[in-house]
């Protein structure tokens, strides 16, 4: 086989790779060890600790973030796969001191108890409301079917999403 041109690969800095991505609306250049997941890079290299380590195997939803507007599990995504992507974490929901309507509703209705699942649920619900400003209860249940909550029994979470949707209209 004739020699083949090598495709572009991420540049390295020592044992680290350097990637450019957009995090919560701001361009970020980050150096990290290439085996890290997006979750590990967000928390350890970008100091965004709102996103939580849960099961780390895709079975709980605590680590959910939005990548290009879609809810994904950051524990299952290698950060190397995110070059050029736009990532939204729970830190990106508020506008300055003004909370996202979802955050207000979760506080009003006690939809966060221990709070560990809350960041993943908030960003997932944000993606739902961006796509469906007036979701039905089954649409909310389906959208949040990848987020486990062991405290609330989910009812207050569904009600908070509905309240946030009503207030945004």
């Amino acid at each position, binding site marked *: 086989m004739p020699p083949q041109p090598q495709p572009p690969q991420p540049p390295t800095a020592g044992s680290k790779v350097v990637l450019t991505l957009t995090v919560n609306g701001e361009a970020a250049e980050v150096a990290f060890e*290439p085996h890290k997941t997006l979750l590990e890079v967000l928390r350890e290299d970008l100091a965004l600790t709102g996103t939580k380590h849960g099961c780390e195997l895709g079975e709980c939803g605590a680590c959910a973030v939005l990548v290009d507007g879609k809810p994904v599990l950051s524990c*299952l995504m290698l950060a190397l796969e995110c070059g050029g992507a736009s990532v939204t974490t729970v830190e990106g929901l508020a506008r300055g001191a003004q909370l996202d309507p979802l955050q207000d509703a979760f506080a009003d209705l006690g939809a966060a108890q221990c709070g560990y699942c809350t960041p993943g649920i908030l960003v997932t619900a944000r993606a739902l409301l961006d796509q469906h400003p007036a979701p039905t209860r089954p649409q909310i249940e389906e959208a949040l079917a990848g987020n486990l909550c062991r405290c609330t029994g989910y009812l207050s979470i569904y009600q908070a999403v509905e309240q946030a949707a009503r207030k945004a209209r």
Partner: protein
Amino acid sequence: MRAPSFRWHAATSLADAARALAAGGPRALLLGGGTDVVPAIKRRQYVPELLISLRQVAELGRLEPHGASLRIGAGVRLGALAADDRLGVGHTALRRAAGVVASPHIRNVATLGGNLCLDTRCNYYNQSLEWRRAVDYCMKAPAGVALAAPAGGTCWVAPGSPRCWAVSQTDCAPALIALGASVTLVSAEGQRTLPLADLYRDDGMTWLTRRPDELLAWVDVPAAARSTYWKLRRRGSFDFPVLGVAAAVELAGDVVTAARVVLGAVASHPVVVPTESLLGRPLGDDAIAAFAELATRLAKPLDNTDYQLGWRKRVTRAYVVGALRELRGDDPALLGVLARRQAALIPA
């Protein structure tokens, strides 16, 4: 739980991925969506020397008509697939299967090719390294890492057995086999197309006939007049199937002219049930009952997934009956509690 170090290659084309795979040798691993591969790497079931990312390979993301079939690239995401308008009523089984894999977050990333190549699963294999070490590992991954062929170790499901009984738990394979799909594998040497059923082997360790230097590029999916997919799992989300029933029929009036029924999660491969007994007659209660009896005999679940073994075998009959009654046009609301549960699980 950290992944170990590996070399990385972001493939830019199908040909580039095939070259990298051929050059990478036995410890090169393809990364589609990664939702199953990444946990397996964290648990040291796989310890790749080279990861080949397929994310940038545009050819794998295509979905387009191809003759009378639909050609679906292996890189198409399951969530996008389930919601794609180009999947018509003739592809109902696939739309339903893709739409009930894992959870919405995982479907946003997981690919069709990954689901079709899904590693076989077992209660003794899908555990942490520490758990598996504590039981002295199993045949599928002696010393921790999954092997392609037996090299000692015990199958803890059937300790006297010379083979591995890990279970095929892909949702999309039974649905696509029922629709009569074929699959194309690409390597640096060329490509070959085979019926999707022939991609699978009844072996928990060597569950695919794919060669190590081949990658699954696309499937061609004919339409079927009526098809469905029923999935059994403990929860309405997250869980792998402990039973999948995919069925497709063609009718002339009310007489069955063609039928395919495939069982998932009851063996190390998708089980194709012979359908001769259904042909040339209407889908009457007696024909369905006799066929369900045959299908249940072919289901050989072992005690290595969720739910009780005996119940999993018995429920096969109920699911086959329900799926075929749905295809003959019975109101799902009248199909009993199992059907109602199915209807609730399937996105509209």
